[in-house]
């Protein structure tokens, strides 16, 4: 394989420097700070702190409700990823088949990605509103069918749909690009041999999409762990009864609202380690099954 490289390493460093600086200021610096706070009891106004070792971690890990928060985060991550990628794949297959109006869909389906999470949350809050939204018609027929303000499962479903809807666009772009990169001749050959559409999808397109699929899996899982804050905040505020209290939202609640900086910092560290471990796991075990062309 041909590789492009710089002969002059200083020049390379210069080009990378701005990016590294940004990563340092917005990631490594705060992350180190959080790491330090996680091992201390920090007074919010900066009046001083005390080294407490692993006490913050003990405090969090011995809390049943923290594990509850981990549990709902995992449910949310798995469900949004499956839903978003499933929908995206379906839509991409249709757009790739060049059905009527596919050019419009190709652009239109990308738009949702440009919408900020809180705006998505607000829109879906209206759609799923038990008293005034679309679901209110269902509630009129079957009273109590849809009660996201009281029923934790309903609230979770609502948040998952909103989260997945926002993710669909991103996966769609990649799936479509992946599909279009598959040589037409392969598919045409299959068609000439008489294999129907679904057969061709299953035997030709999906296996060749595996690298895209893997990439999206990693990104989507990571994203749903770390980027769900805006939706939860506007739709449920973590309720009812902590049913949608995802890990990121709990960090915000404890840290920013509750001013328990150390507890929140320790939770961030745990979340970070979890996401790193998950990604590592995916690369180690799932990537083996992926064949790059």
């Amino acid at each position, binding site marked *: 394989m041909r590789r492009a490289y710089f002969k002059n390493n200083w020049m390379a460093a210069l080009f990378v420097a701005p990016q590294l600086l940004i990563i340092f*200021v*917005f*990631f490594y*610096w*705060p992350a180190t700070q959080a790491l330090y706070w996680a091992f201390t*009891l*920090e*007074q*919010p*106004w*900066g*009046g001083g702190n*005390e080294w407490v070792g692993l006490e913050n971690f003990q*405090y969090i890990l011995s809390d049943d*409700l923290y594990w509850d928060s981990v549990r709902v985060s995992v449910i949310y991550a798995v469900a949004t990823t499956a839903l978003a990628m499933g929908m995206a794949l379906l839509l991409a297959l249709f757009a790739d088949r060049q059905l009527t109006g596919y050019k419009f869909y190709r652009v239109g389906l990308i738009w949702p990605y440009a919408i900020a999470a809180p705006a998505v949350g607000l829109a879906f*809050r*209206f759609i799923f*509103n*038990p*008293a*005034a*939204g679309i679901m209110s018609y269902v509630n009129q027929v079957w009273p109590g069918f849809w009660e*996201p*303000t*009281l*029923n*934790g499962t309903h609230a979770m479903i609502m948040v998952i749909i909103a989260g997945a809807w926002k993710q669909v666009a991103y996966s769609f772009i990649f799936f479509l690009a992946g599909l279009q990169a598959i040589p037409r001749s392969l598919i045409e050959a299959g068609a000439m041999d008489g294999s129907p559409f679904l057969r061709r999808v299953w035997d030709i397109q999906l296996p060749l999409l595996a690298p895209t699929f893997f990439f999206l899996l990693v990104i989507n899982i990571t994203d749903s762990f770390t980027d769900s*804050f805006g939706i939860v905040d506007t*739709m*449920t*505020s*973590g*309720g*009812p*009864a*902590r049913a949608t*209290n995802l890990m990121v939202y709990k960090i*915000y*609640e*404890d*840290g*920013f*609202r*509750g*001013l*328990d900086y*150390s*507890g929140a910092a320790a939770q961030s560290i745990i979340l970070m380690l979890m996401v790193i471990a998950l990604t590592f796991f995916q690369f180690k075990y799932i990537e083996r099954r992926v064949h790059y062309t």
Partner: protein
Amino acid sequence: MTRSFIGSTAVLLCLTTGAVAQDNTQFEYWYGLSGQLGDAIVATCDRFNELQTEYEIICVGQDGYANAVQNSIAAFRADQHPVLIQAYDAGTADLMMSGEFYPVHQMMEDFGIEIDWDDYFPGIANYYAASTGELFSMPFNSSTPVLYYNEDMYAAAGIEEPPATWEQFFANLQTLKDAGVECPWAFYPSSWIHLEQMSMAHNEPIATNGNGYDGLDAELVFNTTIHVRHMEDIVEALNGELAYIRTNQSGINARDSFASGECANYFGSIASHQTVTNVVADSGLNWDVEMLPIYEGFERTNTVVGGASLWALSNKTEEEYRGAAAYMQFLATPESEEFWSTVTGYIPVTRTGFNLMVENGFYDEAPYAGREVAMESLTYTEPTENTRGIRLGGFIQIRSEWVSEVEAALAGNQTMQEALDTAVERGNTILRRFERTYRGQELP
């Protein structure tokens, strides 16, 4: 990431506002109120700036009480903080323990500004005072909860008077339902109303040590008081479809469902009086407010203030403090109080301010009639050990534990007693953690 974002935004704000050429002393004030109430704050700033030329106050909205405190902390740590911040009631203990403020009592004395501290209503002043009775922060927007009720619906159901007791209140719900009112009560789980203020009105403790005033080792006790029965009554009303949950998450909040004429009752801050007035202006709905009911067999005591006060943060120049003191002095004039209480539903905080408004006939006619109910509630008795206020660390988290557990009980996942037991247990863990963070220190 969010943390650094807030920090950098705060820094940016300071840079942009600080860059203006100065010929007078400028100082910043970060406030938390938003919407119509935020506009009212800006109006007080404009009035102050027009009144004199020596100082110029720059008022920066932070969109929410919690944000105002968070952003101030981030800015404070970067030494870019404003002189004044508006901090909410529940954050009082955190700010007091920080020590990073200029006590307002001291500040006024240092600059020779005379303020008659005894003029402040004790139910308000005690919330923000040191153990010695001197005020740390300036009481500002102050409210207390009241019952909002729909007079038309009451009349249609044959109810002549607003309920004085909770027994009567719950009985009324049934009467209203029987008279065809679909939604007798728009309920939302508010710890401020149904835990804190309700306990105050009954002279029942929320925590030991006089609700935390006498030391950081206080423990929550609200799972053993009249509060339990109250919450159980609420569950019963909800199960009997005499009450419905109305929150922003369910699409329409309690205030709006009351103002739109859907629900017959709702409990809320007196500060919403103006908003409800504005909303019902077109529909011509008749409504009024009344003090929180109390249970039979209890003597009514005063409720306490909710809302926010103004804190002067430390590490600023003397000139800036002078400006801040001038602004606070300006806010404390009876005229300013009247202006503030007119454009919002908040109450005056001094006796002089209140008396002036009474003399001017402010409370005699619509749309302001009824707001005196809040004053009556706040000053019903002299504050007792249990009704001075609440001084518990991490109280925002304790409130949210209460809400989560109560929600679980309302959904039928546990009994109310179990919910309150858990809330107390978890709340106590938070209190111990707060005590540990400030080990060896005492409440000032």
